[in-house]
């Protein structure tokens, strides 16, 4: 399995499918501790990405991710728009114009994405945000790549599984960033919607490679 431009396009299309499918679930999660818009925002954003991709296929994975960054930035709004926009932009920069991504490069791209989110949002792990999905995903991808796995799929899977576990692990946390922080202690006992959408994105990356 090679992670090339075609894979990236498949991935982004699967992201859009996942957001449409989980739109209501993400709205419900955000309703509990936020303002009920996360699913709507992500769905609108990735539909726009699909429309953009339809205008002409990007030549590299990096180009696909840059296009995604710009589209999410201009269509999502809210907190998630700039955060995901920055994440995809940093990942695109990290990948440069290589035609294919090897496991190490993917792990580095994920790290760059996560660092972008942290740079903009100033959240730390444990603050009950999407960072709590990205940080374990970055670590798992790095570990899998360092373990010398040349199987890209295995690295993608490691990242997705770690993100999913990270999202679940936000349940008991008290939010310190984002809108859920206004609830104080009452935010505990709910899953962070941005962590869930992050896991959906990383799971879609697996689907595109499978």
């Amino acid at each position: 399995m090679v992670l090339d431009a075609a894979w990236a396009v498949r991935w982004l299309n699967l992201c859009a499918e996942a957001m449409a499918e989980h739109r209501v679930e993400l709205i419900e999660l955000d309703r509990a501790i936020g303002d009920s818009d996360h699913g709507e925002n992500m769905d609108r954003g990735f539909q726009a990405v699909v429309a953009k991709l339809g205008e002409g296929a990007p030549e590299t994975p990096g180009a696909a991710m840059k296009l995604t960054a710009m589209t999410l930035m201009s269509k999502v709004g809210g907190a998630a728009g700039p955060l995901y926009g920055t994440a995809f932009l940093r990942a695109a920069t990290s990948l440069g114009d290589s035609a294919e991504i090897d496991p190490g490069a993917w792990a580095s791209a994920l790290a760059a994405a996560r660092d972008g989110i942290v740079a903009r949002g100033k959240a730390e792990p444990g603050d009950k945000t999407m960072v709590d999905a990205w940080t374990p995903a970055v670590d798992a991808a790095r570990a899998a790549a360092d373990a010398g796995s040349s199987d890209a799929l295995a690295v993608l899977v490691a990242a997705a599984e770690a993100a999913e576990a990270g999202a679940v692990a936000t349940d008991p946390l008290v939010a310190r960033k984002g809108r859920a922080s206004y609830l104080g202690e009452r935010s505990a006992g709910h899953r962070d919607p941005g962590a869930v959408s992050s896991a959906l994105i990383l799971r879609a990356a697996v689907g595109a490679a499978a």
Partner: protein
Amino acid sequence: MKKLINDPKSVVAESVQGFGLAHADLVAISEDPTYITRKDAPVNGKVGLVSGGGSGHEPLHAGYVGKGMLDAAVPGAVFTSPTPDQILPATLAVNSGAGVVHIVKNYTGDVLNFETAAELAEAEGVSVRTVLVNDDVAVEDSLYTAGRRGVGGTVLVEKIAGAAAERGDSLDGVASIGERVNANVRTMGVALSACTVPHAGQPSFDLADDEIEIGIGIHGEPGRHRIPLENADGITDRLLEPVLADLNIGSGDKVLLFVNGMGGTPQSELYIVYRRAVQVLKDKGATVERSLVGNYITALEMQGCSISVLRLDDELTELWDAPVHTAALRWGA
């Protein structure tokens, strides 16, 4: 969900169109990307004022575009901050060369999107200053949190900074007046019922018939805690106490008292709250010099209110009194 809408996806676009038709003497509308400008923008030599945020808080912000207040308003989707590709052209459209002040309510999304737009505007040679509004005492303020939200005080910042811009203050001058208002205003809100975001189709939270939410914001977020329903005087005392404590209001202080409806509360009830708030302030030895009572920054059809207190000085009072002519606030012009 019962609403006078055609489709959750077209709510903002159609309502902005209607607003533009009804107030064509005051504003011009850009439909894609969506923003609203003063009809005569850019005003020669004047600092431009831009605000924006998620929709659903009407009349905020479009209702405050006009002489003596905002030059542009940028509405996002309902409860979703707008994107840089809306904020940037709005900023460019109202820049007369004197620079532009962004008035931004302190929410992660608003802050990040306006930040990006400001960077892009600076890159195009437009000087931008940002006034962050964070007046909500319901929320803990600390470096380690998202900080206090911007709520009722936003209306006062927009009015007073708008008057400063209109009288010809410099870019830094307008921004510093805006910051002064923000530093002297505090707000606290209560919900008697939740609102329903159109695309969500369900109330943002569930409240029993005998419960109220104390410390709510303007996005249908649940508040800080839930208590049994109280009478209006009790609720007023509960909202006002932390506001006055945080501002350290005491004998001799002059204030502007702003009782704001969240959208679904009758005016008569707001005046009952206002009456009690005046009594409490009087008991503290403070004087209510100026007032505002009504639906000025709302959360769709939510029932409830917020109380804001702004400590006045002579300059702020003069700027508050200065002429304003917008769809939602008008005097002296």
